C-alpha cells in the first residue's frame, strides 16, 4: 500500500476505500448550497490485475459517478482511490498531482456509456482514436499507423480512418471508443455500461471483443452494468450498489449461489433462467429508489426490504465480511437464507 511497493509486483491494481462524492444542490439568486446529492456514499472495491470486477445497480445509483471519480473526473468528497501504476507504484487518485494524473491516464482508461455522445462528431476517426496518441506526443505517420492497427484490433477496417462518426452504427462507434481507450496500452479499463445502448444482437459481439482484448493484453476491467445477467459471464467478482453504497460484493459464483443482501436477492430474482420450470418468483420491489439528496434513516434499503426489522430503521449497517472475500452491508446478513440462482455457466 505504501508508495514504496515495487511496481507491478502486486496482484491488485485498484483498491477503492470508502469513496464518497457529494454534489452540492444550489438554489436562488446567489446560488447558495441548500443540500447535497450523495451520489456516491461509501464505495469499496478491489480489482486484481487481468481480472474483471462487475459494478451493478439500478439507474441513478452512482455507478457512472464512481467510475468518473476513479479516473480523477471529480474532486472527491472523501475516500481513497489507490491505483497501482506500473511507473509510479501505488498512488491515491483522490489526492494526486496533475502531472502524476497525466501519467496515470496512460494506464487507466475508460469506455463511456453512450457510443453516440462520446465521439466528437466534428472529428474523423483518425483524430478521435489518435487523440490520446497526439496528447502523448505521437504524431504524423506513426500516429496514423498506430490508429490503423488499433482499428483492425477492434474489428474495423483501417480505411475507415478518414470517416466521421456519423458514418457508423452504434456497435461500430463503441468499437471506435474501445480503440481509443486502448491506444496507450492501459492496464486497467473502466467499461461504463459499454453495451447497454446497443441492440441485443450486437451486445454479445462487443462483449466477446472485450473478452478477447482482455486475454490478449491482460487488461483489468471494472465493468459497470445495471443488470446482473450482463456481468455474470465475464466478471470474476461482482459489487452490487444501492443509492451510492456498495451493499454486497463477492466472487461471481458465490454471489449468484448464495446472495446475502436482500437487494441482491431481488436483483437475482429477475434474471432470466435457462430452465423455465425452475423460474423463481420475481421479487417485485415496492416503493421508489431512495433519493440520494434525501436518503432514509438507517439502512437505505429498509423502506423496500421485505425482511426489515426495527433495527434497520435506526442503525446504518456497515460493510462487513460474511465469509472470506464476501462483503455485505446488512444487519441480518448472517441470519437470512436468501434465494440465489444456480451458478451461471462460466
Amino acid at each position, binding site marked *: 500500500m505504501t508508495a514504496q511497493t515495487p511496481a507491478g509486483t502486486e496482484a491488485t491494481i485498484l483498491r477503492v476505500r470508502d469513496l464518497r462524492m457529494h454534489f452540492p444542490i444550489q438554489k436562488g439568486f*446567489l*446560488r447558495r448550497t441548500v443540500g447535497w446529492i450523495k451520489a456516491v456514499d461509501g464505495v469499496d472495491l478491489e480489482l486484481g490485475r487481468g481480472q474483471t470486477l462487475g459494478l451493478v445497480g439500478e439507474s441513478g445509483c452512482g455507478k457512472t459517478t464512481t467510475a*468518473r471519480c476513479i*479516473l480523477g*473526473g471529480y474532486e472527491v468528497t472523501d475516500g481513497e482511490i489507490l491505483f497501482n501504476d506500473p511507473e509510479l507504484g501505488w498512488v491515491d487518485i483522490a489526492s494526486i498531482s496533475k502531472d502524476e*494524473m*497525466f501519467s496515470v*491516464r*496512460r494506464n487507466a*482508461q*475508460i469506455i*463511456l*456509456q*453512450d457510443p453516440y*455522445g*462520446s*465521439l*466528437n*462528431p*466534428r472529428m*474523423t476517426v483518425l483524430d478521435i482514436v489518435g*487523440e*490520446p496518441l497526439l*496528447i*502523448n506526443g505521437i504524431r504524423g505517420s506513426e500516429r496514423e499507423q498506430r490508429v490503423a492497427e488499433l482499428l483492425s484490433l477492434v*474489428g*474495423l*477496417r483501417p480505411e475507415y480512418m*478518414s*470517416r*466521421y462518426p*456519423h*458514418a457508423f*452504427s452504434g*456497435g*461500430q462507434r463503441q468499437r471506435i*471508443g474501445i480503440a*481509443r481507450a486502448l491506444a496507450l496500452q492501459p492496464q486497467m479499463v473502466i467499461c461504463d455500461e459499454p453495451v447497454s445502448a446497443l441492440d441485443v444482437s*450486437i451486445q454479445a*459481439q462487443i462483449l*466477446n*471483443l472485450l473478452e*478477447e482484448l482482455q486475454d490478449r493484453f491482460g487488461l483489468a476491467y471494472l465493468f459497470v452494468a445495471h443488470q446482473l445477467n450482463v456481468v455474470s459471464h465475464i466478471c470474476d467478482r461482482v459489487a452490487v450498489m444501492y443509492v451510492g453504497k456498495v451493499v454486497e460484493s463477492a466472487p461471481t459464483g458465490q454471489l449468484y449461489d448464495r446472495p446475502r443482501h436482500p437487494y441482491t436477492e431481488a436483483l437475482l430474482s429477475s434474471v432470466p433462467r435457462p430452465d423455465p420450470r425452475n423460474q423463481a418468483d420475481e421479487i417485485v420491489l415496492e416503493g421508489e429508489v431512495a433519493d440520494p439528496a434525501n436518503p432514509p434513516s438507517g439502512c437505505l434499503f429498509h423502506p423496500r426490504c421485505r425482511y426489515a426489522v426495527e433495527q434497520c430503521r435506526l442503525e446504518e449497517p456497515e460493510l462487513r465480511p460474511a465469509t472470506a472475500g464476501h462483503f455485505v452491508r446488512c444487519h441480518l446478513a448472517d441470519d437470512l437464507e436468501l434465494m440465489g440462482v444456480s451458478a451461471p455457466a462460466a
Partner: protein
Amino acid sequence: MTAETMTVLPAADATERLDTASQWQLMRWRFLRHKAAVVSLFVIAFFYAMAIAVEFVAPYDPNIPNVFYQYAPPMRIRFLHEGRLHRPFTYDYVQSRDPKTLRMVFAEDEEQPHPIRFWVKGDPYRFWGLWRGDRHLFGLENPDARIFLLGTDELGRDMLSRVVYGTRISLSIGFIGVILSLALGVLLGGVSGYFGGTVDLFIQRMIELLQSLPQIPLWLTLSAALPREWTAIQIYFGITIVISVVAWTEIARVVRGRFLALREEEFVLAARFLGASETRIIFRHLVPSMTSHLIAVLTLRIPEMILAETALSFIGLGLQAPVVSWGVLLADVQNIRTVASSPWLFSTGVCIIVVVLCFNFTGDGLRDAADPYTH
C-alpha cells in the same frame, strides 16, 4: 465479432462521400437545400459588394445639390427612339411651372436621347477617402445631361447615389457592431461559462441588469450623451458601440449556454479522461462545436443593428447630415406630404426592408444547417 463489420464492408461512392464529409460540408449541403436562404445570401453579397465600392457604383456625388432638378421623379431607361431600336438611353427633363399649383413639373425632352455608358468619367471622388478617381460604373455619354434612376431629393441630389453611399455606413455599422458584440460576448460569455462559480454569477447578474433596461430608452440616452462636437467618424463609432452595448449580452448568453452544455458532453469528458489540456479541450472540442451555431446567431443580429442605426438616425440622435446613412436618408422623408408627392424618396426604406429580410432568411437557413448532426 466480425459479423457486424462484414455487413458494412463495401461502401458505395455516394455514401463514401457522406461518410467522409466534414461538418462544414454537411452544413453547406443542408444550407443549399434552403432556397430562400441561398437567394438571400446572394442579395446580401450584392449589397455588401456595393458598400465596398460606393464611390464607383454611385453615378454622382451624393452631396452636390442641383437646383434644376428638385424633387425630380425617377427617369426611365428607354430602348426606342422615334420608333427605332436604340442602345439604352434616357431623355433629360425639361421643367416648367404648373400654372395652377405653381409647382415645378418635369417633362421628358424627347428630342435628344442620352445613351448610357459604362465606365464613364464623372464627379471626382476619393476612393475610401484615399485614392483619387473619377470613373463611375455607369453614366451618360453627355456630361452635361443627368441620369436620375431613383429621382432626386429636395435639393436635387441623386437619390440612387445617396442610397448607394448609405449602404456603406448602414451595412458596416451592422457588421462592425456584430464583431464588437461578438468579441465582448465571446470573451465574457466564455469566461462565465467556462469558469462558472462567482465569476459566472457576477457576469450573469450584469447581463440580466443590462437586459432588464428597456432597449430603446437606453440607446436614446447613450446616443444623446455622445458629445455634439465629435466628428462624423467619432459619432459613427460611438453609435456602433451604443448599439453593441445591448447586443453583446445576448451573444454572451448564447456562448455561455453552449459552453455549459458542451462542457457536459461525453466527448469533452472523454478528452479530459485522455489527459487533454484545457487549451486543447477549448480549441479542439468546444470552439469548433459552437462556431456554426454562433455564425447563425450573429447573422440574425446584424439586421437588428442595421435597424437600430436607422431608428437612431431617423429620430436625429444617431448620425446626421452631411453623413449619408440609410437612417439619415429616411429622416428626410419624415414629412408625410413629401412622401405622398415624391414616393421615390422612400426607396431607402425598400432597401432596408430587403436587406433585413434577406439577413433573416439567411440566418434561418444557417441556423437550420448549423447542427448537421441532429437529424
